Structures are given as structure tokens and as C-alpha cells.
């Protein structure tokens, strides 16, 4: 991790200077944006396949049960001699991945046992594992800081605070010996305690000793003014590194195994028959989901992380019906929602409105008891924004959007009304009752429509030169005749679909 961070620092320093980099990494807003974006990106990739495999809620289960893996790994590390129990140990990730797998396997076993129905198996397994984790945490690790808000919602706003320092220049530790010019010496009484006398007593004896001898890290030496030059340091937030690693891992996995994942998701039986090991790939996917959930844990908590896995791919699926496009759109949409969601948590709704103004308006109109301060959890705001994107996609989707289907419905109804009117004219024109049936001002009585609607339909037909009127009596034009015949032929063929195939 540290090496990777050093590399990243090296790279970023080629495009920016040190001061700017430290300003960026020390800024809660920028780090939250970067971390949130990375979480969204990393989660949307495996999330797309989970969604297609109808495993959306498995993500939710895994994001909880990984906690048990972390706790067990932590306890194991503490119990084993020679290993240090530390909340940043990579072994915890290993434990989390195992717990994620255990969740999937246990759920599968319970499903196969037939004791409960499918979704209930998940409902049995994940609270069980989560409850064990909670008990272990509260019983055995009083000194570990894990507060419930952080577990549920994460603390993306303070990821900047948990940083590793990287020293770039003037980094040598300082060792002050008594003969160092910087050594400060003092005197202390050697027999005062023994004789019960004060240092001013003439009998007191003294020795010299070094006040500031010892080893200092560079930062300590600078604080103690032992070195003239402040060390050049970069404070790199750990969350950014781990999320970046996970994002790259997920990206690599999906780029490498795109074809195998696609077939294993669409038709696992064929994948197995072709020797492509879909079960193994599924295990790998679940491990990645577990790792992603753990890495995202600090930032967005265990409850809302499922949204990062599922909502952006679901949104992308509304917008496209090609897997490759969904895999491209989902992470991008997730990152966008993450950025705008962060702004939203600070009261800025997509740059359109300020939440404070909206709340004030609501307070004045319906009364919110003066609740006009909009200051909310960042991860919750991101999730709301993701959902807003989903709604927008649903309304405007070119494939199955609400707006589209309303428009299509309207167009179908209009088309049908037009054909109905044309058919009526066709049926009666040239007959004895034509004068009464096709009189323009009495037409609505025959059709049982309102006069307004009748006029509207007639107007559209006239504009397209399908009917004409002669002395107030309607008549089909040549085009109108053709249209009627086409429609009747379609209806006769059993398909009244106006669009045709």
C-alpha cells in the first residue's frame, strides 16, 4: 500500500506541486469527492453482473457479513503470536472475502435443503452472521472503535483524516547525543531525595545530564526545532488508496473475463458445457464484491453500499440494452451521482436550487416547524441522487421510458381514432344514408364522440389529405382510400399493429 501511494504521489507531483497536492489531500471536500467517485466506480462494475444475475440483495447481505470476517480475522491476529492486530491489516480483507463467500455458500445450502424459500435463506444467513459479529465486537474488543453510525452510514466526510504520511525530503530521523551541539543540558541534584534537602541547600550535589537526547522522527525534530528545514511531507488518505486498488482490480477482472462473465451470467449451463467454469467465476465475483464492500465500508457504511452496487447499473440498463454499454454507463453514472450527491449533501441540488431555499419555501407553505437547515449525511445524499438519476432514466429512457410509452400510447390511440373515422366514411360513402351519416356537423353523434374530439381528429385527417368535404358531407380522398385498405388488410391478417414489423 505504502509503495503504491509513493508511486501515486510521484505521479501526481509531475502535474501539480507539493503545496497544491497537500491542499487537495487535506481538503475534506475533495477527498470525499475522490473517494465517493471511486466507490461508485468500483461497485458499479461487479454490480452490473449481480443485477443481471438477480443477486441484488445478496450484495446487501455480503456488505453486512463481511463485518464478521473482519472481526474474526482481527481476533485471530490478536491471538496469534508474532502478528500484530491492526485495523489496517490486509488480513482483514482476506477474512472479509471469506465471510462474503460463506454467506453465499450458506445461503445456497439452506436453499437446497428446502427448509425455507429462496429469499428467506438470505434473510436467515445474513442477520445470523451479522449478529455474531456484533456480539464479538461488543464482548471481546472493547478497545476497538466502531461506532454504529459509522457502520451504517460511513464517514466519507472525514476520510482525509485517516492518512499515511509520506516524507519526500529532509526525512532523516534525528539522533541527539550528549555531545551534539543541539543537545541541551541541565543539572539535577543527585542526593536531594536521599538527604531530604532542597537543591539550594549547600550540601546538595549535582550532575549534568542531557535534556533532549534521543531519537526523533523528522516531524518531531521539526516541531522541537532541532532541524532548520521542515520535512517535505504528503498526507495520503488511506481510503483513496484502498478504493483505487479495488476499482482497478474490479476493472481488470471485468476486462479480462468479460466474455466468460457474460456467458456465465446469460447461460451458465452452456458456459459449464464449454468448460468455462462459471462456478469458479461466480466465486471470484463474490470475492470481489466482498472486497469492494469492505473497502467502501469506511466511506459509505454497510447499509447504503448496496445502492452503489445496484442503482447505477439498473439506471444504465434502462438507457441501453447492450451489456458493454451498461458496463460503461453504470460506473460513469455512479461517479456523476456521487459528485452531484456530495454537492446535494451541502444543499446544492444539481446547481438548480438550494435546499435551504426549498426548505424555507416548504416551511412557509406547509410548515416544517422551522426545520430549514439542510445538513445531511453525504452517503445518504449520494444515494438519493443515484435514485433521482434512476427516476430520470425511467422517465426519459429511449427504450422503456415512461414518457416514451405515454407518447406511444397516445399515438396509438390517435391512430386508431383516425382509422375508425376513416372506416366510418368508407363504410357509408356512396350509400343512401351518406348525407345523414357523413354530415360534418352531425358526425360526432354517430360516433358517440364529443364534438371537440371529432373536430380534432377530422382536422388531422384533413391536414394529411385523407378526407375532404363536399357540401358539408365527408368523402375519402384517394390517399384516404389507400389508408383504409391498408388498415383493413392488417386487421384481417390478425395484427392491428399500426407500426407494423
Amino acid at each position: 500500500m505504502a509503495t503504491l501511494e509513493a508511486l501515486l504521489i510521484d505521479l501526481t507531483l509531475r502535474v501539480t506541486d507539493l503545496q497544491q497536492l497537500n491542499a487537495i489531500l487535506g481538503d475534506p471536500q475533495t477527498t470525499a469527492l475522490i473517494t465517493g467517485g471511486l466507490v461508485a466506480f468500483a461497485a458499479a462494475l461487479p454490480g452490473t453482473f449481480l443485477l443481471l444475475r438477480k443477486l441484488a440483495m445478496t450484495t446487501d447481505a455480503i456488505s453486512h457479513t463481511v463485518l464478521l470476517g473482519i472481526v474474526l480475522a482481527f481476533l485471530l491476529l490478536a491471538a496469534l503470536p508474532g502478528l500484530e492486530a491492526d485495523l489496517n491489516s490486509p488480513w482483514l480483507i482476506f477474512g472479509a472475502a471469506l465471510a462474503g463467500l460463506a454467506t453465499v455458500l450458506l445461503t445456497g445450502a439452506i436453499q437446497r435443503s428446502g427448509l425455507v424459500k429462496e429469499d428467506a435463506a438470505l434473510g436467515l444467513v445474513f442477520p445470523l452472521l451479522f449478529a455474531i459479529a456484533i456480539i464479538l465486537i461488543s464482548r471481546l474488543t472493547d478497545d476497538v472503535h466502531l461506532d454504529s453510525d459509522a457502520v451504517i452510514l460511513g464517514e466519507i466526510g472525514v476520510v482525509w483524516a485517516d492518512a499515511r504520511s509520506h516524507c519526500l525530503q529532509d526525512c532523516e530521523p534525528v539522533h541527539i547525543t550528549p555531545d551534539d551541539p543541539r543537545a541541551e543540558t541541565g543539572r539535577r541534584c543527585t542526593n536531594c531525595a536521599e538527604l531530604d534537602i532542597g537543591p539550594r541547600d549547600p550540601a546538595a550535589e549535582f550532575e549534568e545530564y542531557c535534556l533532549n537526547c534521543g531519537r526523533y522522527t523528522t516531524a518531531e525534530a521539526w516541531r522541537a526545532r532541532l532541524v532548520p528545514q521542515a520535512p517535505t511531507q504528503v498526507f495520503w488518505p488511506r481510503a483513496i488508496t484502498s478504493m483505487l486498488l479495488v476499482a482497478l482490480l474490479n476493472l481488470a477482472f471485468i476486462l479480462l473475463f468479460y466474455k466468460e462473465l457474460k456467458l456465465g451470467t446469460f447461460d451458465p449451463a452452456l458456459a459449464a458445457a464449454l468448460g468455462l467454469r462459471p462456478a469458479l467465476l461466480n466465486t471470484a465475483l463474490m470475492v470481489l464484491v466482498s472486497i469492494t464492500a469492505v473497502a467502501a465500508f469506511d466511506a459509505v457504511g454497510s447499509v447504503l453500499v448496496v445502492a452503489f452496487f445496484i442503482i447505477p447499473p439498473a439506471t444504465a440498463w434502462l438507457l441501453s440494452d447492450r451489456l458493454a454499454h451498461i458496463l460503461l454507463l453504470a460506473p460513469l453514472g455512479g461517479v456523476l451521482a456521487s459528485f452531484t450527491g456530495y454537492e446535494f449533501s451541502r444543499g446544492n441540488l444539481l446547481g438548480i436550487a438550494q435546499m435551504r431555499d426549498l426548505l424555507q419555501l416548504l416551511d412557509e407553505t406547509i410548515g416544517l416547524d422551522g426545520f430549514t437547515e439542510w445538513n445531511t449525511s453525504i452517503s445518504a445524499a449520494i444515494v438519493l441522487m443515484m435514485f433521482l438519476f434512476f427516476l430520470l432514466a425511467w422517465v426519459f429512457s429511449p427504450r422503456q421510458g415512461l414518457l416514451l410509452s405515454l407518447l406511444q400510447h397516445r399515438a396509438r390511440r390517435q391512430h386508431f381514432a383516425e382509422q375508425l373515422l376513416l372506416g366510418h366514411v368508407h363504410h357509408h360513402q356512396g350509400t343512401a344514408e351518406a348525407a345523414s351519416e357523413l354530415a360534418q356537423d352531425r358526425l360526432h353523434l354517430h360516433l358517440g364522440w364529443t364534438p371537440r374530439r371529432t373536430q380534432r381528429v377530422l382536422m388531422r385527417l384533413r391536414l394529411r389529405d385523407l378526407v375532404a368535404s363536399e357540401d358539408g358531407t365527408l368523402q375519402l380522398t384517394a390517399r384516404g382510400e389507400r389508408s383504409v385498405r391498408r388498415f383493413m388488410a392488417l386487421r384481417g391478417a390478425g395484427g392491428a399493429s399500426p407500426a407494423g414489423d
Partner: protein
Amino acid sequence: MNQPPALHVEDLTVAFDSRPALWDVDLSVPEGVLMAVVGPNGAGKTTLIRAALDLIPRAAGSVRIFGEPVARARGLTGYVPQRGSVDWDFPTTVQDVVMMGLYGRLGWLRRPGAAERTRTRQALEQIGIADLATRQISQLSGGQQQRTFLARALVQDARLYFMDEPFAAVDAITERAIVALLQELRARGRTVVVVHHDLQSVPDYFDQVTLLNVEVIASGPTAEVYSEDNLRRTFGGRVAGIARLTEEALP
């Protein structure tokens, strides 16, 4: 020594929770024949295919494909699962699904390239759905879905095909297309094992038939084993008009 049969199943038993789905099945399919597997619901027809492809564990017995264990014969087999076994809302196109048949040959990590696209194109044309190539699969009719699956099997270019109810709920045109494809595969010396439901058409379409009801009731050339007596033993007299059926169908 004789050529090994395309499929040789010996003493195969498959059980779900110690309830046997297949019981001591012995079966041999010579190369170059079209064989129907016929039996009532729950007879283990699909299970037979899945066990033969090593997709489910066997409780006992062995399966050999051209004399090889299944794992070594993956490149020789093609599989057309039941149409309903996949989610047709999956975001992909017809040509994409067909190309999936080439994934086994491509192996891990390699991407389909120009050669694969050409073969996909040819298979689509041969099955007569080239015009649907870029269509989203959720917009296909049942018959078109089935043809997509057949095109996918075709690109696998296997020597032994397993097809699970390819004729289920397809229109007459698709049925004819499937029959034409089966005959062409046979002409090219391929072997096809088809789970089949329409008892009437068995003698018309297939050289050999296996009558299955957990156990193999009879297996062999259609003219020899497709008799009223065997059908009765397979279906337990549950199929109305078995007598009429075999009288009409068999000379």
C-alpha cells in the same frame, strides 16, 4: 477395433436427495445418427443430457464421448439448452448470443475477432435469421429464440450435439427449419441427441429413439423399438391414443 460410439453411458444413476432421477441407465449412440429421447415429465430426459455433459454430479456410472471422458471431450460436444432456461431480457443481441457458442473454442481471455464474426454471420445465414443479427434478444418470438440457440449450436461445430426440447412451442416454419438443420448435421456425419415431446413426429425425424422413464425402457433404431408396447411401458398408458399413434406412424 470398432470406432467408439459418439455417446456411451454405462450404469448411470443420478439422484436428487437420494431420489433417483435416472436409474442405472445404459445407452449407446452410434456416430452419425439422430436420436430422440422420449419419456413422460420427470422421466429424467434433461437430467440425462446434463449428466452426460458433466453439468451435474453422478451418483454412479460413467459417460464416454467418442471414447473419452467428458472433461476431455468438451470441444466435441455442443449443447442447446431449453429455451426457457435463460433470461431473454439479458442485454445482448442475437449475433452476440450466437457468438457465445465459440467461447469454448476461444478459451480463456481471448476475445472474439474477425474469424469469429465471420462464422457467426454464416451460422445466422444458414439458420435464416441473418436479418435479426443486431436485434435485442428480448424482442424475439419463441421460434426466433429457438433459431438463435440453434445457430449458436451450429457455430460450436461439434461432433455430438445435445438439444433439449428444441421443438417446444415453435411455429411450423421454425419446426421445418430445425428438421432441415438436423438432417444437414446428419449428412455431415454429426450425431444429435434430442429431447423430444411430440410422439407423432418421432419416426419421421429420428433414426434412433430412447424411451426413458427414470430407467431406459428401450433404446435402438426407431423401426425396432418404437412400438406400442414400449410406449405403454414408458408412459404407463397415460398417453391417449398411443395405439393409434404407432399404427399411423409405423408401417
